């Protein structure tokens, strides 16, 4: 148990308890407090402060401000900074929803292989999953961090899309829709979901058989001139260092090498220099070259940067001469070890059209998913891009080759190898053709063209696009995905029309009433005209024609139009419509992963709960100007800003609008016409935390936020009209735009229901993750996870989104207050934002620790950031003086505007956030009636607007510490300096 005597007085404003006080303390704890205030500090709050010193990664001290009071987890008024990346972040909220998918669902792994999820039970830790990064609309890979299996009974949802894709998931499993993540049970027919049409090839474990041993490699190496003596030794020792030899079928490097080998046979070259292979060069688009570079780095080699140069080209063909200019992008891998390795694996070097080569034999012994990588790499470079010949039908994808005339047989054999490999995927190809128009005359004689085409029959190319597709070519991969999805829909419609034609013919024979039948059978894709021609033969120009098999309907979109309206991002993702949702019996296990999100790592803490904060709006009026209108103004403000308890605003925002606010914050609202650009500049973080990700915020939290934008909440949340009764620092006040007797509006509220739910959700998630990170804590509410853990990252992104929501909420309240002012005082009335700052937030900031600059996750719980002059993160106009700091008093008591000072560096540039409670709500209610509070305030000339008397007594001034005392401590300790004192003239309280 903590005793106040355990704290040592350092000076008149600061006390400290040493680390030695308790074994689990990692750092000492400090509190800024005066002798006068010390007696009012609860021991429970001090215990919470000491508990927070146990958080992993905490640096220097756990700090408390003079307004400290007991909360849960760390105390309110607490500050802690955790070192990155090994420190923690702890939310106070969690929500690991155990929403699962059925065991036969295929999950897409890295390298384009898939596997039914149930097969991963024992091996999930060794695989890498592909997943969609919704923020970047991209496909990316990540490691699973948890595998989940549970018994499901009795139902599961089966969702079927219009292209025929289906998935079976539990009712609470989220699916990405146009409105963001939605649980299966809330999804309706006709909604659009994001799909990746590419399916890949079934994963099989590969053998440990050797493809290339060190001896094999040395044999190949010794053929080259440049590799004698020490050079040879160097090459071998390098390959040993990167652990690539012996190369086996199950080596982790093999999948990358297969793609690289495939691509090199198309758009790569290994030149011949001194009878040896020279540096390997790759050509292509910069984004694709970047993907190749990344893979090369993964296997241990160093690629050069990408070079771009513009060149003029001239090509003479059988038909004519072509001249064109284009920018060529390329990079090289200079290491001889790399060239030698590729050559040892069967790649030709020197001019390929002059060389005999085949698909390396060892590739035929690879697993199918590995063979795909070789083919897709080659196709990314050499196979034609999916395109249509008449808007609806696709050309047969073709692979062309140029070869010296005398090597025609070898070229055919190479294409035959490709043909055979494709046959293993059950993909049909046409016979290899010689292409007469592709004969060139080069320095070394004539070359001829050969071509292999993949059969253009719809089901065949769908299979090709969905299983093999392209690697190292984002554009071709994207088109292939979209084409597969498009063709599947097209085939479905053709099938529907074929059936309709048959059916109507049959029925017409039986019943003979065309009009009646048409009424029943006509639809979007089987219009009356189509049904008519299905039954009656057409006669034109005296010729009777019978209709054959139906084609797709004219109103079916062309492929180009389809791309425009259905593509999602640039990586082949597509919006597909839900055609059917069925609740089906499922008495079996269901499974799920928790996936490590790709961005940066970080995590944790339990400090942050809901993100409330404060802002001040400045008017040009003095109290004298306002007084005659005060009642009307306060009433109008109350009308415009509801408390939102159960009764939110009349308008409910859509989930999509909530997502926008979560990710884009105040700038988004300004772009929509709410407020001024200046408001962005005067808000902490410019009203938008960049790390925010709406996908990390649960559906529940969003639902709670839908009618809360622009509402106050209850408790100590309020809007007030204040007048400036004292100026302490004229210079700073002038920079802030404050003057004596000026009327200002103060708004104190937070992220409302959305933030609270976010907290609840993440506390739950983090608590469940504690054993995984071996974190033991004295209080569950301190639950935290490493900042760089997946849970930590997700929490940080969700919390950042909730901060954006809170700033947006205060911004919208300001907008509605502005409306009220205009209504009462005239259109010319303008309110200007002084500053907006959050009270509960965890942020990455750079601070000095023991003389060294380092990045910390600073947690402020019921505390305010206060940056000194010249800090880069404050608005330009305040740079010379420091950040405005707003310290609100309790209802009916003064508030202060202060300015950040350099001395607060020792408290991570933090000061108090208000007066701090001293008396419980109940005690306050017992001590004083609401009526008495109102009449006391009235006597002081303060008007109160509150819909219910119940809440007034709880917030009575006597329930709080004396704000003047609190501010004095901060001022004297040098953490911030007093600029102006505000006294309330009207308070509009939440209920």
């Amino acid at each position, binding site marked *: 148990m903590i005793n106040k005597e355990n704290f040592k007085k350092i000076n008149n404003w600061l006390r400290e308890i040493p680390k030695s006080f308790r074994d689990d303390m990692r750092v000492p704890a400090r509190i800024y407090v005066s002798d006068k205030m010390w007696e009012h500090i609860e021991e429970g709050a001090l215990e919470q402060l000491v508990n927070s010193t146990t958080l992993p990664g905490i640096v220097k001290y756990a700090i408390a401000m003079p307004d400290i009071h007991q909360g849960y987890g760390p105390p309110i008024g607490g500050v802690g900074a955790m070192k990155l990346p090994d420190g923690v972040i702890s939310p106070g909220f969690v929500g690991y929803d155990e929403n699962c998918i059925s065991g036969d669902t295929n999950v897409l792994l890295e390298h384009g292989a898939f596997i039914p999820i149930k097969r991963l039970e024992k091996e999930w830790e060794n695989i890498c999953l592909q997943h969609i990064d919704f923020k970047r609309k991209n496909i990316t890979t990540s490691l699973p961090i948890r595998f989940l299996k549970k*018994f499901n009974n009795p139902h599961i949802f089966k969702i079927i899309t219009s292209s025929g894709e289906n998935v079976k998931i539990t009712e609470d499993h989220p699916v990405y829709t146009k409105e963001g993540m939605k649980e299966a049970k809330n999804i309706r027919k006709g909604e659009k979901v994001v799909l990746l049409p590419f399916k890949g090839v079934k994963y099989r474990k590969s053998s440990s058989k050797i493809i290339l041993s060190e001896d094999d490699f040395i044999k190949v190496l010794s053929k080259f001139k440049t590799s004698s003596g020490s050079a040879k030794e160097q090459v071998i020792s390098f390959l040993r260092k990167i652990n690539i030899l012996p190369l086996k079928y199950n080596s982790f490097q093999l999948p990358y090498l297969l793609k690289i080998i495939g691509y090199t046979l198309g758009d790569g070259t290994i030149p011949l220099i001194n009878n040896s292979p020279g540096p390997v060069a790759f050509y292509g688009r910069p984004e694709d070259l970047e993907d190749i570079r990344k893979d090369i780095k993964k296997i241990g080699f160093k690629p050069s940067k990408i070079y771009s140069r513009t060149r003029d080209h001239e090509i003479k063909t059988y038909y004519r001469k072509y001249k064109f200019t284009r920018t060529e992008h390329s990079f090289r891998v200079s290491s001889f070890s790399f060239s030698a390795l590729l050559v040892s694996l069967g790649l030709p070097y020197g001019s390929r059209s002059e060389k005999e080569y085949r698909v390396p034999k060892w590739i035929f012994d690879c697993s199918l998913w590995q063979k795909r990588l070789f083919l897709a790499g080659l196709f990314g470079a050499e196979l034609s891009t999916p395109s249509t010949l008449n808007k609806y039908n696709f050309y047969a994808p073709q692979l062309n080759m140029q070869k010296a005339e005398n090597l025609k047989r070898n070229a055919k054999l190479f294409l035959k190898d490709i043909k055979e490999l494709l046959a293993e995927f059950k993909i049909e190809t046409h016979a290899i053709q010689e292409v007469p128009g592709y004969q060139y005359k080069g320095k070394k004689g004539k070359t001829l063209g050969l071509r292999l085409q993949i059969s253009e029959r719809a089901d065949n190319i769908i299979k090709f696009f969905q299983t093999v597709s392209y690697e190292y070519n984002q554009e071709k991969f994207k088109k292939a995905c979209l084409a597969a999805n498009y063709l599947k829909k097209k085939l479905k419609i053709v099938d529907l029309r074929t059936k309709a034609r048959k059916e109507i013919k049959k029925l017409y024979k039986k019943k003979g009433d065309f009009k009646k039948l048409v009424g029943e059978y006509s639809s979007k894709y089987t219009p009356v005209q189509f049904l008519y021609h299905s039954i009656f033969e057409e006669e034109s120009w005296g010729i009777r024609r019978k209709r054959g098999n139906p084609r797709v309907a004219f109103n079916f979109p062309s492929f180009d139009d389809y791309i425009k309206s259905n593509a999602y991002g640039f990586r082949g993702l597509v919006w597909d419509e839900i055609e059917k949702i069925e609740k089906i019996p499922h008495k079996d296990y269901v499974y799920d992963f928790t996936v490590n999100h790709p961005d940066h790592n970080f995590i944790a803490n339990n400090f942050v709960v809901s993100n409330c904060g404060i802002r001040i709006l400045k008017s040009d009026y003095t109290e004298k100007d306002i007084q005659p209108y005060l009642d009307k103004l306060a009433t109008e403000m109350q009308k415009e800003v509801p408390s939102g308890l159960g009764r939110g605003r009349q308008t409910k925002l859509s989930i999509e609008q909530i997502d926008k606010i979560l990710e884009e914050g105040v700038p988004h609202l300004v772009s929509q016409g709410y407020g001024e650009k200046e408001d962005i500049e005067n808000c902490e973080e410019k009203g938008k935390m960049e790390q925010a990700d709406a996908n990390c915020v649960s559906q529940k939290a969003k639902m709670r936020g839908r009618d809360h934008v622009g509402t106050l909440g209850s408790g100590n949340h309020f809007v007030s009209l204040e007048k400036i009764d004292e100026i302490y620092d004229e210079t700073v006040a002038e920079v802030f735009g404050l003057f004596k007797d000026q009327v200002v509006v103060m708004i104190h509220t937070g992220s409302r229901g959305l933030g609270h*739910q976010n907290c609840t959700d993440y*506390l739950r998630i983090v608590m469940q993750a504690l054993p995984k990170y071996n974190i033991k804590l004295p209080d569950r509410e301190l639950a935290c996870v490493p900042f760089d853990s997946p849970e930590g990252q997700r929490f940080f992104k969700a919390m950042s989104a909730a901060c954006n929501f809170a700033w947006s909420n205060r911004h919208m309240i300001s907008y509605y207050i502005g409306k009220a002012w205009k209504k009462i005082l005239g259109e010319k009335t303008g309110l200007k934002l002084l500053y907006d700052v959050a009270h509960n937030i965890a942020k990455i900031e750079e601070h000095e620790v023991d003389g060294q600059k380092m990045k910390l996750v600073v947690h402020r719980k019921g505390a305010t950031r206060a940056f000194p002059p010249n800090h880069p993160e404050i608005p330009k106009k305040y740079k010379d003086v420091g950040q405005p700091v707003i310290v609100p008093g309790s209802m009916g008591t003064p508030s202060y505007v202060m300015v950040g000072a350099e001395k607060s560096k020792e408290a991570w540039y933090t000061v108090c956030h208000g007066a701090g409670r001293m008396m419980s709500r109940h005690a306050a209610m017992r001590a004083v009636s609401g009526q008495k509070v109102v009449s006391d305030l009235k006597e002081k000339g303060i008007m109160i607007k509150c819909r219910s008397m119940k809440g007034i007594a709880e917030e009575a001034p006597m329930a709080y510490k004396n704000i003047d005392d609190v501010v004095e401590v901060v001022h004297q300790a040098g953490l911030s300096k007093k600029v102006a004192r505000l006294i309330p003239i009207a308070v509009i309280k939440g209920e």
Partner: protein
Amino acid sequence: MEKYKILPHPADIKIQAFGKTKEELFLNAIRGMKEVLKVKSKKLKVKREINVKSIDLNALLVDFLSEVLYLSQVNKEIYNDVKFKKLGPSTSSGQTILEAELFGNKVESFGEDIKGVTYHGLEIKKKDDLFEVTILFDI
């Protein structure tokens, strides 16, 4: 037997709930929460299904109350009765589960805004055949 009582806390609200059975304890906890929310309810009756899974019984109570709070706020409803179908350890998942139906009324307005249900000092204890627990609400 007392169902619940509201305890003093400087900033937030604490309640203590009692019950002869776990079910009764959970029921009285939501009745205590109902009092904290100070609702003006309407006549229209409502019924909701609720399923919760958690790591242990203490966490289950927090998660149950959080879920009830969520349902209250989003649907503008208050619940004063519960029909429990399951409450206790699940053999298949190894977790503690709750399946129940909530009964209550539509709400005109709430007088208090509970931000969240906390784990602070929460421990379900059994004394003389009576379960009891203290719950701190963040308000």
